[in-house]
């Protein structure tokens, strides 16, 4: 059922959510809009294309404690469970889609990442359709769009001075019926559908330039191509692309101990770092930028699709905007198609 909520009522709802649980929302600070815990709706920025960092920060944080240990003479291990429930507001469609891609890695198969699973279960995602896609956005290339709601518990679409709303899951209905009680009104179904359609069809200019179709198969026989040599030379080997990407999930485990007591953490790692695959004996199967750059793009556009039947990219455009040397996935897709076309 489609609902509407006025801007003022949305503020009251967010204030309530901030009071009752941990509310994560876009905040503009020193020129950067990113997701941060907020205490009141007044801190929230609403004028942004997308946040500099993504919801990944809160479902799969950059570092998190896994266990505590004591090693004085004996050994005891105490598992640490992720903390309390959270509500995330203002999540863009591409980032909602990224969560489904992360789910496939972290929750399916023989093993489940229980920390991630617990955070997923305890997180309510409030999506916000995009009014003004950035010139780096290309979600439509992957079949997503500025109104794509899949993955949201509650989806909001700005409609004039109010918002169209839809609760899409039990968690979402609990928000609308609980803290949201009395704040939402039923929407006119036809008008609501028109709003949704307008968002779904909203133009994403860069998306028209990036044609993803068939890139997975084109890469099947591209491992040895000279292209990787040429393109990787300019990479700085920083972790920017992987850290800002909502779907990159490489991590490492690390211990910190003092006087027989300590913690084991899980921290993000990056396949772009030189030591990432270096073994204890010194051998490194990906010794140069060429192998590392190739790994990143092959993983997203070929290996992951083989395993999980979708691309590991949502076209959020963060790497396009933030890679200091312009070595990003949209460019690689275009380049590979170009090389193949001339081959």
């Amino acid at each position: 059922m489609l609902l509407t909520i006025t801007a003022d009522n949305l503020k009251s709802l967010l204030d309530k959510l901030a009071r009752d649980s941990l509310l994560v929302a876009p905040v503009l600070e020193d020129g950067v809009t990113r997701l941060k815990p907020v205490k009141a709706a007044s801190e929230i920025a609403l004028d942004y294309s997308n946040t500099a960092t993504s919801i990944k920060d809160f479902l799969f944080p950059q570092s998190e404690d896994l266990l505590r240990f004591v090693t004085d003479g004996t050994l005891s291990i105490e598992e640490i469970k992720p903390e309390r429930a959270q509500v995330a507001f203002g999540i863009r469609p591409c980032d909602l889609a990224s969560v489904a891609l992360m789910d496939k890695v972290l929750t399916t198969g023989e093993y489940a990442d229980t920390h991630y699973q617990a955070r997923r279960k305890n997180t309510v995602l409030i999506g916000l359709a995009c009014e003004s896609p950035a010139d780096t956005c290309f979600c439509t290339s992957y079949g997503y769009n500025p109104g794509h709601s899949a993955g949201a518990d509650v989806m909001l679409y700005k409609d004039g001075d109010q918002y169209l709303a839809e609760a899409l899951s039990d968690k979402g209905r609990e928000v609308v019926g609980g803290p949201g009680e009395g704040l939402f009104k039923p929407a006119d179904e036809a008008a609501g559908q028109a709003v949704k359609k307008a968002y779904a069809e909203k133009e994403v200019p860069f998306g028209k330039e990036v044609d993803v179709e068939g890139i997975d198969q084109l890469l099947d026989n591209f491992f040895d191509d000279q292209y990787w040599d040429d393109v990787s030379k300019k990479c700085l080997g920083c972790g920017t692309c992987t850290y800002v990407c909502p779907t990159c999930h490489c991590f490492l485990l690390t211990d910190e101990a003092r006087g027989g007591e300590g913690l084991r953490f899980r921290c993000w790692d990056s396949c772009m770092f030189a030591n990432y695959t270096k073994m204890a004996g010194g051998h490194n199967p990906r010794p140069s930028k060429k192998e590392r750059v190739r790994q990143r793009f092959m993983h997203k556009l070929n290996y992951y699709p083989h395993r999980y039947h979708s691309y590991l990219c949502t076209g959020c455009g963060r790497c396009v905007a933030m890679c200091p040397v312009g070595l990003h996935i949209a460019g690689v897709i275009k380049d590979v198609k170009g090389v193949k076309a001339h081959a």
Partner: protein
Amino acid sequence: MPENPLVPSVATIDRITPETAASDVKTFQVTFDDPAVMERFNYMSGQCAMLSMFGVGESMISITSSPTRRGFLEFSVKRTGRVTDVLHEAVEGQKIGVRGPYGNHFPLEMLKGKNLVFIGGGIGLAPLRSLINNVLDNRKEYGRIDVVYGARSPGDLCFKYEVLENWTKYENAQVHVTVDRGDETWTGPVGFVPAFLEQVNPSPRDAVAVTCGPPIMIKLVLQSLAKLGFTDDQIVTTLEMKMQCGVGKCGRCNVGDKYVCIDGPVFTLSQLKQLPPEF
């Protein structure tokens, strides 16, 4: 049992056996403190486990004991880095963390009824030892067995009691041992494993070859096996990659679309040839 697959269980080192003269390889016999965890730790030859030295980190080590001999686990570890350095300083009775078992295993079904050629170099015999003891414990189910084993020097040979005495006692089982460089005590063959293998000249008929060892040795052994007439489907080997999670999540151990931690470490040569050469 911890709910999180990344959290190890507490285990005790019951016995430490130095394998090499320089003691740079030691075998650690380990049991979980919780009998229920021990009971549930069902593994197959070729699988690995993550050993934790708390405060330093973890290292993925192949299980060298055979699942046919229950009640303990054995890991043979070479000193190569931070974690293994600390493990080597451990004493009997010390507690460590263990999680696993991880990965696939040697294809026993494929080996049944076949003549088996095991080719190992140095500490590379550790995963093979699990398989060899497993096979020997079910001797009747397999054909002729040849173990070809080499190390840099006599002092670098591991599992000497089994290699030089125990395994040779089984029917239709032969052990061939070589060293790169001999010493005054050594009366056996001298030479590198691949050339030695060609001298031993095992027949590829109804046979499967299983090889583990340093990458350069494996590379040359594969060439020798081809010369001897073994097809890619008759050759089984293992891959080694840096690992963190062991459960297919952390992303670093992939070769192409395979994660060595869950899809490996055991591959037939024909499977390996499907993968990009990045290991």
